[in-house]
């Protein structure tokens, strides 16, 4: 039975890296008595995969894990059992059954919502918020993107779906996943550049709000949150 789990990662848990969060959940499954499926062999592994790794320092309301379980369990029980064993800063918010033919989350992530604000003492002075719309209205937004081998200029404008601000918080929806992946800090760097602001290290507090799959096509996107692709188990 295919299951999608959604959890939140907040507080000091943002300092626990992606691989360690995976180990954390492997152990959590055992503590919570979720009858997760294992691969065979001498050192069997849980059938478990994460949707999109989250960088150290970033908090999130929408982390996803896909697992396979042997014994059915209701959403209500699973949430209780898992949350009883979570640490402060980790909260499981959804446990949904996926249709059997579903692809794993990792392969379908297409976009993500982020909320970004400046850490105290790091914000640009003046009314920078006003400039977001003209920044976004540009024909193209060219940045230097580092890859493993080289650095190259790319236009990230097509990868930014929306961007807006309110009360000092920048909200954006940007391309995410294996095909086109944009990091929110890159967008803010471009914006800082645009307003002529020198962005220092550690300036940003980044929070992931949601992850989406595209159930339309490339030209006519139809985004749906990963959570809404499954059903509660009664």
């Amino acid at each position, binding site marked *: 039975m295919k299951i999608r789990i959604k959890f939140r990662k907040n507080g000091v848990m943002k*300092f626990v890296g992606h691989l360690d969060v995976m180990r*954390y959940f492997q*152990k959590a499954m*055992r503590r919570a008595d979720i009858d997760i499926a294992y691969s065979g062999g001498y050192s069997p592994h849980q059938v478990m995969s994460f949707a999109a790794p989250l960088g150290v*320092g970033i908090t999130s309301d929408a982390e996803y894990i896909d697992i396979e379980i042997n014994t059915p369990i209701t959403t209500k029980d699973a949430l209780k059992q898992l949350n009883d064993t979570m*640490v402060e800063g980790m909260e499981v918010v959804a446990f949904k059954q996926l249709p059997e033919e579903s692809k794993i989350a990792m392969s379908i992530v297409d976009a993500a919502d982020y909320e970004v604000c400046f850490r105290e003492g790091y914000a640009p002075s003046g009314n920078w918020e006003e400039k977001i719309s003209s920044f976004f209205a540009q024909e193209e937004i060219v940045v230097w993107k580092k890859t493993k081998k080289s650095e190259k200029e790319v236009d990230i404008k097509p990868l930014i779906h929306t961007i807006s601000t309110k009360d000092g918080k920048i909200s954006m929806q940007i391309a995410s996943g294996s095909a086109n992946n944009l990091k929110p800090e890159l967008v803010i760097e471009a914006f800082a550049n645009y307003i002529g602001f020198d962005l220092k290290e550690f300036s940003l507090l980044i929070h992931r709000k949601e992850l989406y799959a595209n159930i339309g096509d490339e030209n006519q996107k139809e985004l749906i949150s990963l959570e809404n692709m499954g059903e509660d188990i009664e």
Partner: protein
Amino acid sequence: MRKQALTDEILLSIDKPARYIGNEVNSVKKDLKDIEIRFAMCFPDVYEIGMSHLGIQILYDMFNRMEDVYCERVYSPWVDLDKIMREKQIPLFALESQDPIKEFDFLGITIQYEMCYTNILQILDLGQIPLLAKERGEEFPIVIGGGPCTYNPEPLADFFDLFYIGEGETSYFPLLEAYKENKKKGGSKLDFLKKAAQIPGIYVPSFYEVDYKEDGTILEFRPIVEEAPKSVRKEIVMDVTDTYYPRKPVVPFIKATQDRVVLEIQRGCIRGCRFCQAGMIYRPVRERSLEMLKQCAYEMLRNTGHEEISLSSLSSSDYSQLQGLVNFLIEEFKNKGVNISLPSLRIDEFSLEVMSKVQDVRKSSLTFAPEAGTQRLRDVMNKGLTEEIIIEGAGKAFDSGWNRVKLYFMLGLPTETKEDMVGIAELSDKIARRYYEIPKDQRNGKVQIVASTSFFVPKPFTPFQWSPMSTKEQFIEKAKIVKEAVKAQLNQKSIKYNWHEADLTVLEGVLARGDRKVGKVILQAYQNGCIYDSWSETFDYGKWMDAFESTGVDIDFYTTRERDLDEVFPWDFIDTGVTKEFLKREWKNAMDEKVTKNCRMGCSGCGATIFNGGVCFEN
């Protein structure tokens, strides 16, 4: 939200920030308003090492069961954070509350190996606690040392207020009671220490004075206050079943060295190898009951979610219920995706059978610790393992498909000759030959033998405590002889030879059998910038040598010097139950190449019967 002692900026600029945030599964949260005693429990090494230590988990659990005590953990900040904390004057903090440890009532430091001594000073220093006990006023925590190295606490005497000698499960109760009572009465630190000195197992170094002879050896070691006893007997739990054992150990976020449930099946060892300190100081052997261990395994796996369980003890094959326990673990957990990690076992039908059940035979190795290359030298050290046993065991394993062998030896043992060194290579070769006796078509490829040698360090409370230690040059020469000898063997291509650093060994030798005079070398080495001496990337031999030079302490006095049979040792005031008479007898037996029976084959009257239990009273 949780308090953070370090800012986001710091945490994001150092390696593995999760080392410093606390908040792990099963870490204990308490409300400070109900707390009378705050205890910071420290393992003075990096988090991943410290978190793997069972002893701390046992005490952490025990302390936190007490309602008015809050025990928190603290580990050595890695060098990256160390630098930042010094620059920014950030006081070292405990993981749970993130509060500075200088605000605590106690700082307990477990001292597991000599090469962590400068890290102890790092902890105090970063904690903004004066390094020398005599410079610490009433406002600072009481600094307690525990663990195996306290069986010779003298090199560290200047830095600690008191040492707890022996197993922690007993005397902490009266010690904390005495502390509370003293606080209530408005007593001073000195008042408390005087009370503490009268509690079994507690040693308050400032209550003793040492006089030296002209040759530098000890003339007399004597108490200078009435409350301090002449000798301090180690503490020990006789019933290791009905006692504290953590059912909910803390589960780190980052991968610790031991990322698994650990079942300590027994304490002590019946064997009596003459070089082995643990085998002497933890006498007598006491076994935990099978029922208790089964239950612990079940609860601990459930509460941690670990995917692996391992057994721990000095010589697991000697645990009388081993078969029952291992079979239980396999039957109960193997199908639930839990790995059973076996300790090194004597090779026989049983161990081969269980090994083949829980490991991939083609990928796992057999382990033997012959310790010496010839039977003569093995008799000197009372290592009961013979060549026949090894070859037969290896042969059986080879016949069932194994093809990897790890061998552990020591160089620099008393009476060692070239023949013993060459014997290491020859024994390795004999094992390889046994492998190639198997017809080619039935073999599992080539055999791989890894022979490793460490250098012998004489330790207090062993029959070898009188033995001179080799110099660095001698050690290196010995390793060279073994290396050459390996090259001369028929199957040299199947044998890989590894040896340890000699620099570290010499230092370990000084610290292990050091006296109070060595304290100033440790302090100087720390001031020269030494920390993390057990890590090759940070160990700085030159800085240590400078420290010896500037303090005028002679290395050879502690290492290569031949000790007189009647010399007063710095650690003689500690009573481990095992008598000095017995150790002397064993030292003579060693020189006569005479073996001594293990406790189950016949008692040799070591003295441990005074504890009224364990293996001494099995029959």
